[in-house]
């Protein structure tokens, strides 16, 4: 109520977008755990991005003794063939985050497009798309991923594509459900009456109203695809050595001797997976609350 409008309308645009983001920010801050998680995530992502600068050694170079325990020179010790674990961990985080983010992007795009089409057009299009979605969903996906990884050579980009193509059904269903209810609202009808084109209605009217749930769902997809990447790499079907990923670092720790007497080989990557996944999930939970338009009208 209080502010007086300046002569340019542009000013107002800025004021109100800020205030919406401010509301979200304020509500997000209430979740201390999530705020803390976000800081940790930021630090870890920063470290991953800056890996070439901050890593003490070349991750693929043999620089020390075999399976050397942590010491001054190698803070997290060395692995079975004498590579620095800390350097490999930093590079592994890069790979794991890259796989997670890219797979999430791919599945979000596929899910959003299919969900929008199914929900808005209904009828036959909806039937075909949703039955296809059910099919992908009902398939034991780890098997699918293994078969796909066996057919296409396992490798970084193949893993990203495979994970991207199995994780979209949840998003498609979510978007479809939202579109179905939005389609009946008066503002969509008003836009039809106003003769607005389909692309405007789908992408400018409907999509912004489903962004919040998509974003929340995407965080869980991000966590899941990082876990999947770790699982696949652990099984040897994922990112191939010598490239380090959190999963294939764990792969080295399959023997009992390593598990019991050389914990520096598996605790760092294992712990890193746990921290990343838990932090992402906390952030997602808080986002759900912060973005929900019904949790607080003003």
């Amino acid at each position, binding site marked *: 109520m209080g502010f007086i409008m300046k002569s340019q*309308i542009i000013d*107002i645009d800025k004021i109100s977008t800020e205030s919406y983001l401010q509301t979200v920010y304020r509500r997000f801050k209430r979740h201390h755990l999530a705020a803390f998680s976000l800081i940790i995530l930021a630090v870890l992502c920063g470290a991953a991005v800056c890996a070439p600068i901050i890593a003490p050694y070349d991750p693929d170079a043999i620089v020390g003794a075999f399976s050397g325990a942590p010491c001054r020179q190698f803070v997290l010790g060395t692995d079975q063939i004498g590579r620095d674990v800390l350097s490999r961990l930093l590079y592994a985080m890069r790979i794991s985050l890259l796989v997670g983010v890219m797979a999430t992007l791919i599945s979000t795009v596929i899910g959003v497009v299919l969900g929008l089409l199914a929900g808005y057009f209904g009828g036959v299009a909806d039937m075909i798309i949703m039955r296809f979605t059910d099919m992908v969903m009902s398939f034991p996906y780890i098997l699918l991923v293994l078969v796909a990884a066996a057919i296409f050579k396992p490798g970084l980009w193949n893993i990203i594509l495979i994970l991207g193509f199995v994780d979209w059904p949840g998003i498609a269903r979510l978007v479809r459900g939202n579109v179905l209810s939005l389609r009946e*609202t008066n*503002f969509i009808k*008003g836009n*039809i*009456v*106003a003769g607005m084109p389909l692309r405007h209605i789908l992408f400018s*009217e409907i999509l912004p109203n489903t962004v919040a749930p998509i974003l929340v769902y995407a965080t869980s997809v991000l966590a899941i695809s990082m876990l999947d990447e770790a699982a696949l790499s652990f099984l040897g079907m994922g990112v191939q050595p010598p490239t380090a990923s959190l999963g294939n670092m764990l792969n080295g720790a399959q023997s009992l001797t390593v598990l019991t007497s050389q914990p520096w080989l598996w605790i760092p990557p294992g712990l890193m997976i746990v921290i990343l996944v838990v932090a992402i999930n906390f952030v997602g939970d808080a986002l759900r609350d912060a973005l929900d338009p019904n949790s607080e009208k*003003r």
Partner: protein
Amino acid sequence: MDMEKIPLIQVDRMKKYYPVKGGIVTHTLGYVKAVDGVSFSIMQGEIMGLVGESGSGKSTIGRQLVGLEKPTEGTIYYKGKNLADMGKDEMRNVRTRLQMIFQDSYSSLNPRKHIYEILAQPMLYHKISTKETLEKDILRLLDMVGLQRNVLGRYPHEFSGGQRQRIGIAKALSLKPEFIVCDEPVSALDVSIQAQILNLLKSLRKELNLTLLFVGHGLGAVNYVSDRIAVMYLGQIVEIGDAKEIFNHPVHPYTKALIDAVPVPDPEENGKVRGLLQGDIGSSMDIPSGCRFHTRCAYAGDKCCVEEPKMQEVLVNMGNGHYAACPNIMDK
């Protein structure tokens, strides 16, 4: 003067049936006959009121006039041209001429957009404004509907119902329409705000030479704004004519009941016997035989259960275009 002769909107035997599906193997069980053979016309510059209970099909007619739904049967003429025959380009042009104001003003505005965006996007798309004139045009719109200019940066939830309805009206006006369907625009508002919005619509009509179809379920508000009124019951028009004429000399028993249902703010009238209706409007899936109203009509005779009454001119006041569909008109 020629403009006066051709109706702006003409509806000819419009029907809208919705299939009802069900069963273990999905099949059509029957039809909801929401609109069942309705004809009327609206002249340029006129406010036509459309009244009836919930379920009488009045909103369905409104939705079809603005092209949200297509009639199952029958035709809609806009300036003498059949809407269904229009090509894509012509239709896009006509679309902007036929606008709608919704009952629920909250859901008729995108909650994620501020008012400026809501108003500007259609105007830019249809090239009604250019980037240079947009600001001026929008401010003029706000003036027209009585809103302050500082509303532009706010979101729909930050407004009261009356203000939102003004925004809804501005949005409809932004495309420079000739004809606006007002689908119960005041039903969700406080009584004091209702009067403001009704007066606004009336003055806008004069100012912009608009033609309105005013859909409502209370005869009070409809009578206040309308030049002519059509009364609907179960998908059909039962009485149509000049607003004053309908209100003062109703002939159809249903219209009489509707008028009696308008609350009178006068304690002296308390004792007056009012012919209030009992029961519910029937199901539009299973329509009564003969006159559709006979199940609730106080005057219904044997003939009413069998014979479907035709629209006939009411002879009380000849030449006023007052028609009603009741076999007992002549007897009274």
